[in-house]
């Protein structure tokens, strides 16, 4: 865009209309800074929970006001606030809040001096995610990505006394840096080919011959590959089990839900960069991802690791909507439908996954064994409520009707069937059969296996905050399963 004067450019970029649009991200960033400030002001530590709660609730509210009255593109078109981003933002804030609640009491005495830094993650991460989904500019997304990732790398290694945690942090960091480089390389190739990094301008160029040049396509491929790392798509998923297992569980929760959601929130709107001929390729990648995730999960005995693989499989399922979108010849209406399907899927996944990881975090406090298939044996007799909630989450992950997980899959497969991709839909549905095998194993172990007498003493009591968080997650799963229309109505 060209402007008559600096004044014009300035006005276009910084009108006051932008303020409500960027408010959620601003609130979260200020909260994160405040959290570090608390750490260095003597005697301020007690206000930690207040800052977390105030910031996240504030962000929720700020996003909520954007829902009915979105500001649209602001700041010279590098940032946009739409109903979708408002919902994403609310999900991020809610997810961070739930994960944070589960972290209360999770860490031992050794970690206590560093809790402010830990909590800062739960504010900077949703800030980064919000930037990611709102960005209309390849660099802006990168800023959000790093704002999310850098603290996450550190927090993965938060339990410094444990080798697997340190290993997780280092692995995540090295591979994350590699993926970031891939993304940036892709973005620079796109700039080389088109001379712009604005998503809107790129979209307007689609159909030009320029978008079929090797440089453009290579750029698009590398860019997408960089994002694929974050959503753990085959063959970029290998780090997932190691990192998820090693990281402290509340941090894993955030990685599994928010990061994936934010990356999809940006990836689906920019998937127009891929040529329509890539339909089969993306569908194949999605199916391979589902296969890798499901088959990997099938043989796990550690539930955290199993959930990690299952997360990979879910990422594959969501990726199918992009294949559907490309199959439609990049039709905008289908694109929106695909985005909404993914939004719903990830909303259900966020509640389900947060709930199940959170319950694992609770079980982990007293003994590591309790997060294995053996460890949860007969848990239903000791903690029927915990077992019932876990069962609900497993059923939702498996896509049983009347849970949110069912409609997530339903909407995704609807997109595929609409575009006539029956074969892919059938293969995808068959994968969910395999998936049910391992979710069922958890349920079987919870309810059916005789109680291992030696373990009975070690089951931790359910704390009030964790109980409330679990109830909220279960409610979310059920509301999405019983009244999916209500959620979709929010999008208008």
């Amino acid at each position, binding site marked *: 865009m060209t402007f008559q004067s*600096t004044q014009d450019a300035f006005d276009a970029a910084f009108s006051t209309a932008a303020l409500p649009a960027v408010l959620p991200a601003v609130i979260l960033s200020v909260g994160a*800074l405040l959290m*570090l*400030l608390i*750490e*260095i002001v003597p005697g301020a530590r007690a206000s930690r929970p207040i800052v977390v709660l105030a910031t996240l609730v504030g962000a929720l509210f700020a996003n909520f006001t954007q829902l009915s009255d979105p500001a649209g593109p602001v700041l010279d078109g590098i940032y946009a606030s739409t109903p979708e981003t408002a919902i994403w933002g609310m999900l991020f804030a809610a997810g961070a809040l739930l994960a944070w609640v589960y972290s209360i009491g999770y860490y031992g005495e050794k970690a206590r001096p560093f809790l402010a830094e830990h909590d800062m993650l739960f504010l900077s991460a949703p800030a980064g995610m919000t930037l990611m989904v709102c960005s209309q500019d390849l660099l802006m997304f990168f800023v959000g990505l790093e704002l999310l990732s850098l603290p996450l790398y550190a927090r993965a290694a938060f339990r410094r006394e444990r080798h697997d945690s340190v290993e997780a942090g280092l692995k995540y960091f090295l591979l994350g840096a590699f993926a970031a480089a891939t993304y940036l390389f892709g973005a620079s190739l796109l700039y080389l080919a088109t001379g712009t990094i604005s998503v809107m301008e790129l979209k307007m160029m689609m159909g030009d011959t320029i978008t079929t040049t090797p440089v453009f396509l290579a750029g698009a491929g590398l860019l997408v590959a960089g994002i694929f790392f974050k959503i753990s798509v085959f063959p970029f998923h290998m780090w997932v089990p190691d990192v998820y297992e090693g990281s402290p569980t509340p941090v894993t929760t955030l990685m599994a839900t928010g990061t994936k959601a934010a990356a999809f929130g940006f990836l689906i709107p920019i998937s127009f960069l891929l040529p329509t001929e890539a339909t089969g390729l993306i569908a194949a990648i999605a199916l391979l991802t589902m296969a890798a995730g499901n088959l990997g999960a099938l043989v796990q005995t550690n539930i955290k690791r199993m959930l990690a693989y299952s997360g990979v499989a879910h990422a594959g399922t969501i990726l199918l909507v992009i294949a559907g979108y490309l199959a439609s010849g990049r039709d905008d209406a289908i694109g929106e439908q695909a985005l909404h399907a993914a939004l719903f899927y990830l909303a259900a996944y966020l509640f389900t996954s947060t709930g199940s990881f959170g319950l694992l975090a609770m079980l982990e406090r007293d003994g590591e064994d309790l997060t294995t298939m053996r460890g949860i044996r007969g848990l239903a007799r000791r903690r029927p409520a915990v077992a019932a909630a876990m069962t609900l989450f497993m059923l939702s992950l498996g896509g049983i009707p009347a849970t949110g997980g069912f409609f997530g899959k339903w909407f995704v497969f609807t997109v595929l069937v609409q575009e006539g991709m029956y074969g892919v839909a059938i293969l995808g549905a068959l994968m969910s059969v395999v998936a049910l095998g391992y979710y069922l194993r958890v349920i079987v172990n919870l309810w059916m296996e005789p109680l291992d007498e030696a373990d009975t003493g070690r089951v931790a009591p359910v704390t009030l905050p964790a109980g409330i968080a679990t109830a909220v997650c279960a409610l979310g799963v059920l509301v999405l399963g019983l009244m999916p229309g209500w959620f979709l109505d929010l999008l208008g």
Partner: protein
Amino acid sequence: MLNDYLPILIMVGAVVGFGIVNLVISELLGAKRRVVGKGQAYECGLAPKGDSRMRISIHFYLVAVLFILFDVESLLLLPWAISAKSLTAAGVGGTVFAEVTAFVVVLGLGLAYVWRKGGLTWDR
């Protein structure tokens, strides 16, 4: 457009080729006498001692990272400094100045945080 890069490609090819050719020729033609001393690291004619993979205090890296962080961030002040006059002429100098001040304050906060947490103390 890609044609413009052809000379670079030729250059790259020439460089790599030069290296390979030299290595291959010396491997083929050179005399080979393997003695223990040849396998050792060369340290100005002295006999090498100790392990070359020395352990360096982690603190060194911390300070190095902090240096780069603040260095790069303060680099962002340069574009503002250069365009400050024209911005003032355009009537937005005050606002931009306020923004830059906010940036410096955040940076300062970071410095305070690092200081307070003992990141700048060498001996702990």
